[in-house]
Every structure is written in C-alpha cells, then in structure tokens.
C-alpha cells in the first residue's frame, strides 16, 4: 500500500504511452540489438569491429552526420525567424502563417521530393533564377548534389523546427524585454541575455526533432541524391531489403541510433547547462 501511494497518480497518465512504446518500439529494439550483437548464436562484437575498421564506413558516417547537421542548420536559419514572426503576428496573418507551415505536412515526402526534382532541374526555377541574376553563367544542375539534398530535406523538416520554437516563444512575456530596456540593456544584449535563454528550450527541441529525422531519413536521399551517396539509413535499408544481410543491417541501424540519441541527449544537456544559468 505504501509503495502504491508513493506513485504520483499523474504518473499513471503516461502508462498508455509506455505500454505502446514498450511493445512496438522497445521490444523490437532489443531484438535489433540482439541481432547486431549475436553472430551464429554466439555473442560477438565482430560485426561492429568489421564495420568500424572499414574506412568507407567512416565516409558513410561522415555523410550521414554532415547532411543532418547542414539540414538542421538550414532549418534553424529559416525556422527561427519564422517562429518569431508567427509568435508576433496576430489574427489573419498568424492564421495564414500557421496554415502555410502545417498544410505542407499533409503532402507526402515522395510528392515533395518529386516536386524538388522539377525545381532543381537544369531548366528549373532555381537554376533559371541564378542565371537571370548573373550569379551563374549557364544553367547548372542542383539535382543529385549534396546542396540539392540539403535544400530539399530542409523543406521537408522545417515545420518541426518552427513549431517547437513558436510554442515556447509565444509564452515569453514581452514585458521582460521592456523591463531589461528600462534598465539600460541594448537591443543586442536583450536578445542574447534575455530572449535567447528563454527561447532555448524550444530551439533545442526543434534541433532535436529535425536532427533526428534528418540523420535517419531514407526516402528523401533516395530520391534527391540517389545511389551515389550512401548514408547509414540507406545502407541499413539496403542490407535488409536487398542484400538480405541482417547482420550488417542491424549493425548500421544500431550505429545510427547511438549517434542520433547521443547528439540529441548532448544538445539537451548543453541547453540545460547554458539555459539554466541565466
């Protein structure tokens, strides 16, 4: 009885989520780990040793991380100002921005990737615009390049940057900035020492969302850059779907998972340290 009473009843609210995730995520994850760490019925790390001793696999890890970081940065550069605008806007303008952010979420990734294929073509609008502006001498191809992949992927993931930042920023009391101003704080100081620390939790969850989606994306690189650019996710997919090499597939999946989780955990730890002090 004592033990039961100590459980906060509010804690019970997470029970459905815990059961659901435990069943459809936790158990399969254990299965995946087991496959990666058991070879021919014997526990072994040979799969990982083999993976990490191949220089090519480090290139794949590099590809995966570089693209994820660039996509996250681009999403942040686009998403942060948008989130501020959204928080400040009122009435119809706010509704319009929200619709513009949320509506594209209902369009499938494959459709978006195909649309980018048209936009990034040699005779597509981006190439034409750059030529018209005199930045390019002749139409060039952006399709199937890393730049094209980053631009296209950021388009897919940017709502997941905007929405968490917006939900935090809209709760920041505007009077805090005014109070700082009356105490003599310059605009730059107010932004960096008052506003940014308060917005940081939103930024960190936006980064965590976008990074973890970008690091594991499969369909977008498949369609926007193709077979010549391998990431951990595409390598995993191929190992399972085509090569029937479950050992390699589960190894790359575990490596991907560890990378994604550690980046997300590290970023939230950093934010707690720096955000907490202010």
């Amino acid at each position, binding site marked *: 009885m004592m033990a039961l009473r100590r459980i906060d009843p509010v804690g019970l609210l997470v029970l459905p989520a815990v059961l659901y995730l435990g069943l459809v995520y936790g158990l399969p994850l254990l299965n995946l780990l087991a496959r990666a760490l058991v070879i021919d019925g014997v526990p072994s790390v040979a799969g990982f040793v083999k993976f990490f001793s191949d220089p090519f696999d480090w290139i794949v890890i590099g590809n995966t991380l570089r693209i994820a970081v660039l996509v996250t940065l681009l999403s942040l550069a686009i998403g942060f100002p948008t989130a501020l605008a959204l928080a400040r806007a009122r009435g119809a303008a706010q509704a319009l921005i929200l619709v513009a952010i949320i509506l594209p979420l209902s369009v499938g990734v494959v459709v978006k990737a195909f649309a980018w294929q048209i936009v990034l073509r040699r005779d597509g609008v981006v190439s034409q615009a750059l030529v018209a502006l005199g930045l390019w001498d002749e139409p060039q191809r952006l399709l199937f390049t890393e730049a094209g992949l980053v631009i296209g992927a950021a388009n897919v993931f940017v709502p997941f940057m905007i929405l968490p930042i917006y939900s935090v920023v809209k709760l920041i009391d505007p009077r805090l900035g005014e109070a700082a101003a009356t105490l003599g704080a310059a605009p730059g100081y107010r932004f960096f020492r008052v506003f940014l620390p308060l917005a940081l939790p939103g930024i960190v969850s936006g980064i965590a969302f976008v990074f973890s989606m970008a690091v594991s994306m499969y369909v977008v690189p498949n369609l926007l850059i193709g*077979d010549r650019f391998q990431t951990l996710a595409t390598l995993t997919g191929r190992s399972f779907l085509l090569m029937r090499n479950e050992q390699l597939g589960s190894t790359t999946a575990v490596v991907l998972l560890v990378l994604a989780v550690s980046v997300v955990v590290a970023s939230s730890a950093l934010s707690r340290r720096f955000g907490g002090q202010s």
Partner: protein
Amino acid sequence: MDTISRAGLSRRSILKAGAAAGFTLAAPGLLRAETKELVVGGAASHKPWVEQVVIPNFEKKYGAKIIFEGTKSLVNLEKMQKNKGSQYLSVVQMDDPVMILAVKEGLLDPLTAAKAPNLAELVPGATHMDGMWANYLQPWLGIAYNKTAMKTPPTSWADLFDPKYKGRIIIPSLQNTEGLPSLFVAGHLATGASFAAAQKDTDAGFKKLAGIKANLLTIYTQMPQAYNLLEQGEAWMIGPAMSSFASERKAAGAPIELAAPKEGVFAMPSGIAVVKGAPQSDLAFAYVNELLGAALQAQLVGPTASLGTNKATPKPAGLPADLTVHQIDWANVAAERSNWVSRWDREMAL
C-alpha cells in the same frame, strides 16, 4: 484482351468460383482434391498477361482452375519457406536470383523433359542448375533514350561513355538486377573480352566505369524516377533499360524509344519452377510446359516486350533478326554480388 478475359469467365466458371469460395471456408483440403485447382505464385506485374492469356488457355485445355497470386519474388520465396512440408503453391514464377535461393533451401522440384517436353526445345542458357528452373520469357536490356533530345538513336553501349553526354546519362544501381550488365559492358568495352569473360573478371569493368561518372546524372534505385527524368528531357539515355518497362512507358505516350546496341542486348530473367511437394504436381508440370511452349510464348512476347525462350518463338516486332542476346550467369552473380556492390559503393560515389 478484354474479350479474352470475358470468354474465360463463363457463367459456369463464376458459379464454380462461388461454390469454391464457399467450400474454401468449410473444407480447403477437400476442395483441392475435387476441383483440380492450381495455385501459381508470381509477380504482381505478371497479373494482366497471366489472367488474360495464360489462364484461359490453360483452363480450357486441362479443365483445371488456376489461382494466380501476384506479389514479389521474395514474398513467394517466403511463402514456400513457411509452408515447407505442406505447400499450397504448385508453381512459382520468380526472378532467377531468387530461384537460386529457393534451390539452396531445397524448395524446388527439378524439371525434366519427360514431365515438361518443351524443356528440350529451349534456346541455350534458358535452363538453369540442372533443370531446377527455366526461363519462359526474357525481357531484354538495351538503351532507352529521349527521342526529342537525341536526333540519332544510340547504336552502341559505348555511346553511354561519350563525353558529349555529360550529366545526361542515368544507369541503374548495381543492387537492381537490371543494373548488372553495366559492369559487364564496361569490361567488354575496356578489353574487348567476350561478355561471358567480362562477367567472370570484373576488374577492368570497374576501372572503365569510373570513366562514366562525369556523364552521370544519377544512379537510380527507383526505376519510375529515372524514366520520369528521361521523359522530361533532364536525362537523355538510360542504360541498361528494361524492355518491358520502357515499352510500357512508350505505349503510354512518353517520348522515349528503346535501342538494341550492336554489341547485343542482355536477357533478363523470368524463371518458372515447380515447387517441391506441390499439390497437383502433374498439372504443375503441365502449366510449366505450356509456358515453355512456342504457341503460348508467341502470344506473350508482344504484350510483354520480351523475347521467347522456345526456339520456335518468333522475335517480337521491331527487333533486328540477327540480334545477339547475352545471358547472365546468375550463379556467378549470386556468389559475387555483395562484393561487387561494395566496390561499386566506393568507386561510383559522388
């Protein structure tokens, strides 16, 4: 085509199907014993021609009912694995690389000329692993090109390497079955070795392929995407390109054409085999025999844009009579593929 399928669906066969549906729930074993029913597992893309041409022909001749399950080769393999000992599939139509896996697991009953006489009438290279399976049709691999962009059609595989097509070429990934000939063609172009030799020694092929990189728009894994780019004119050629897919797009009005290079085209595998422990084993061999026969193949080569494997089957319209057709050594592919893909990843990367 429509009339064919309607003729097959007579009032009696509808009644029979209805009764069968009722029976299936009650006594599936009994049903199979009484109505002579044959279950064939194939690819979803086979469905139109199997249902419109093969089934009506077969049902009329043998008075048996055929149920065609159209999925994917690997799904059929799994169905056989799961039901080992109590198979319900009698015949499988699968890609050759998957046939090899099925042979390794002991899931196939070898074909013999005694049980399927047409086996003796096939072109060389159409029977595999001592008759474990045979090819009934062979879609072929040539070069697909955009008619608007290319005023003169490509004539040789070497055209893919021509520097004037910088950024305009798409090739399939080596992980796609239709992508394998890129490697063999490159080897042949580099050393002049025969296509058979180039399949065994791929080193020269890999070195030659590095020279195509500047020409590549991309390497595809999703075929529809590649054809989309070709039809829009962003890409000018896809090679190797599968006849069955390209002709389907062409028929739909896409501005593309398929060329047969002078060095010859490659045959793609469409294998057929009898399942070991198959129900209605005699009928299963009869079904295979029909698909290996010239009469049925002649009706199928047109709609599927494929070559027949029976010596007596005429070539589909539009192909040169002296066309060379190269066969791919699938056992060699099965043994080497993961090494090839691994090297391909490294050397063809951006």
